């Protein structure tokens, strides 16, 4: 069969679907942070904006945004308050929501200046103990980002500098700035954001995945959240994600997202 025939078949199928109302013309209402590069931004320049556009286009839906900063209670204020239908870029299966199939898996990464030395790729790298290391800090009691826990388990706390998640600039940007100006030698940050700001830094920065630990993992599959009573919408999004796989991959590559193979996390990690 020629590819041209396939295209015809697909167009016919789409027309059929359209005619019979299985996929009606509708809005896909997306909640997103208005200023959270590289994920989302009000001008559409985030990679999640572009993936949302692909999904909406594939579903034949009009993409509508509701801008809501990622602050405390964001799920409650968005999906919970029926402000929107979907929330992009969430880890799988959070409480009170249902998630689509994952569309990428990334990981926390080590970032270092290229002129500082060979990239760090293990929490047991002895240079970590002798260096200033920056980590993001969550603004919630008794919680820690996975790499900070991995460091604490090794008793590495004295030389760790915390960067609060909340602030005027994205935390990954502040961490990369601190790395560039020598305030810290090593930092750990969530891969997509670290890679994005590393590429824009004033100095060359190496980015290397942090390995999963037995007690905690550093890599996470990312999906789209819908309300847990919206299974039809979730199914439609899943179909769109499958069909748009290659275009989504192209967006992720364009934004230098550190990618790991999709698939389940090791079973020992729930």
């Amino acid at each position, binding site marked *: 069969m020629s590819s041209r025939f396939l295209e015809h078949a697909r167009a016919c199928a789409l027309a059929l679907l359209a005619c019979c109302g299985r996929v009606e013309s509708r809005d896909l209402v997306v909640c997103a942070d208005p200023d959270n590069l590289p994920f989302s931004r009000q001008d559409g320049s985030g990679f999640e904006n572009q993936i949302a556009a692909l999904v909406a286009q594939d579903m034949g839906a009009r993409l509508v945004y509701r801008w809501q900063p990622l602050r405390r209670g964001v799920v409650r204020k968005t999906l919970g308050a029926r402000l929107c239908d979907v929330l992009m870029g969430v880890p799988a299966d959070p*409480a009170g929501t249902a998630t689509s199939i994952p569309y990428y898996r990334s990981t926390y990464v080590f970032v270092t200046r290229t002129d500082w030395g060979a990239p760090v790729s293990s929490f047991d790298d002895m240079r970590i103990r002798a260096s200033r290391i920056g980590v993001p800090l969550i603004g919630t009691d008794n919680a820690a980002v996975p790499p900070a826990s991995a460091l604490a388990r090794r008793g590495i706390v004295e030389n760790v500098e915390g960067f609060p998640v909340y602030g005027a600039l994205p935390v990954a940007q502040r961490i990369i700035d601190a790395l560039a100006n020598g305030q810290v030698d090593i930092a750990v940050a969530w891969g997509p954001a670290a890679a994005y700001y590393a590429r824009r830094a004033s100095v060359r920065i190496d980015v290397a995945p942090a390995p999963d630990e037995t007690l905690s993992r550093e890599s996470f599959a990312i999906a789209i959240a819908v309300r847990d009573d919206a299974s039809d919408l979730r199914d439609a999004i899943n179909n769109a994600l499958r069909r748009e796989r290659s275009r989504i991959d192209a967006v992720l590559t364009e934004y230098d997202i550190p990618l790991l193979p999709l698939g389940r996390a090791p079973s020992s990690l729930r």
Partner: protein
Amino acid sequence: MTTTGANRPTARTISRAALCLIIVVGLAALAQGATNTPSSNVGDWPMAARDYANTRFSPLGDISPTNVATLKLAYTFSTGVVRGHEAAPIVVGGTMFIVTPYPNVVYALDLSQPGAPLRWRFEPKPEAFAQGVACCDVVNRGLAYADGKVFLNTLDNQTIALDASNGKELWRYRSGDIRAGETRTMAPLVVKGRVLIGNSGGEYGVRGWLTALDASSGKELWRAYSTGPDRDVLIGADYKPFYAKDRGTNLGVSTWPSDAWKIGGGTVWGWISYDADLDLVYYGTSNPGPWNAEQRPGDNKFTSGLFARDASTGRARWFYQLSPHDEFDYDAVNESVLVELVFDGKPRKVLVHPDRNGYVYVMDRSTGEVLSATPFVSVNTSTGVDLETGSLHYASAKLQRTGIVVRDICPASPGGKDWQPSAYSPRTQLLYIPHQNLCQDQEATQTSYIVGTPYVGSIVKIKPGPGGQRGLVTAWDPASAKSRWVIEEDLPVWSGTLVTAGDVVFYGTMDGWFKAVDAKDGHFLWQFKTGSGIVGQPISYRGPDGKQYIAVLSGVGGWAGAVVSGDLDTRDGSAAGGMANVMGDLKQRTTKGGMLYVFALP
């Protein structure tokens, strides 16, 4: 009046007039000393706690156990705001001033007119962004009055002085950054022409402080940080803590790993009291943050403790850390009530402090010595306080380890008692503690937080404590360190208490009942159902008509009431810091609404 030779006052009458004046002024000064408030009128209620000692005791005794059953609604006033109304109304010179939760509108009501019509209103228009930052509803805990001015704190970190007579803005000063997680929910305290304010936001890596502003200009006079080097904490030669554990140089740095003190919490969002004789102010600092406890080894000074500071200079006199290296969110910001007690046959100037960690502390307020520390709720996170060393002994079974769920931690994070203030009657010598009976399951480390993506973690689940009742009002005898009587309530008692010279205690419930009980034995006397749950602070005042009134703001919310005021989905039990898990039924029992209720005898 014209002056003629005939009735011109003689030297003798002048001196008599002067003498009278001296006596009157002297009496006024005495009265002020005795009541210890910025208003000389005993019928007034000029600050949230009424007096500098934070007693919330009304010297008015017209309403008594024998007649309180006839108490009737006198007037009401809708605030137009439906979030948690935690504030106390204040009353000075025939005017009542109330402040709403965000957007922090101030109303002045004319008490000399029937129905207390609006005299003026003031809208500070705080930044909307602040709503998304506040940890536990967008509350405000009250105004303060001094020298013809009303002082207002806004959620977006402004302090504003208003002309009490007309509501005109005199100055405003911003000290804090909402984008860095700082907010302001506390009531200011005005002492000797200084407005004392602190910050909220220990959950966000904010560095805590207490600041004094010039009441006439809003100029910042000093700032005392809760962490960092001694020069920032205003610690010098006159710092003399009672216990060795609180002595040392630059403890605000050395009890933290690396530079963690810079974002270490210790915010100041609770109550401040003031002893005019010692010229010291007392207040507590919040929990350390925002690290997981494993990542901040050390005592984390000067968090979760009490400071005594020189009221003029802010310099620290003593500090006592109630919960060193806190793992449970046990802020020490609750009220310190200043009273005189007889201990071992000797009268002592003490402070009584019911803490979140579950103990009532009785301390010598000159020295910072702990005279007694006794649990007033079920406590299993610690086994006691060593009065020799001042150390709290933690129970190892409840300490956190990464990835381990620790069950049945008592008290839960809101503590044996949260911000809701107690009242103390010098007549009964009892402290009336409004509080909760909650425990929690807690996972030390949320291991799937992904920075930059929506966070929907689930780590803390709060549940009813032993016995199942979620709320208690405890009449505590600080001299004998025993409870005299206890009232059990189904819901957490998130309102303040008021006690009067008529020996009546008032408090509200989260489903809207406003109740009066006998101060001596806790017997139920009267109740009235308000429109929404009560989390405010009841007060009493004498109106221009000479009658005693009781006033309270109704309007559910705050941490415990956020499931209603914030429309939380209680299927996520970790919402509102785990509170949603234990407050799910509140949505069936009350609804939002902000309303002032004022009562009087017929």
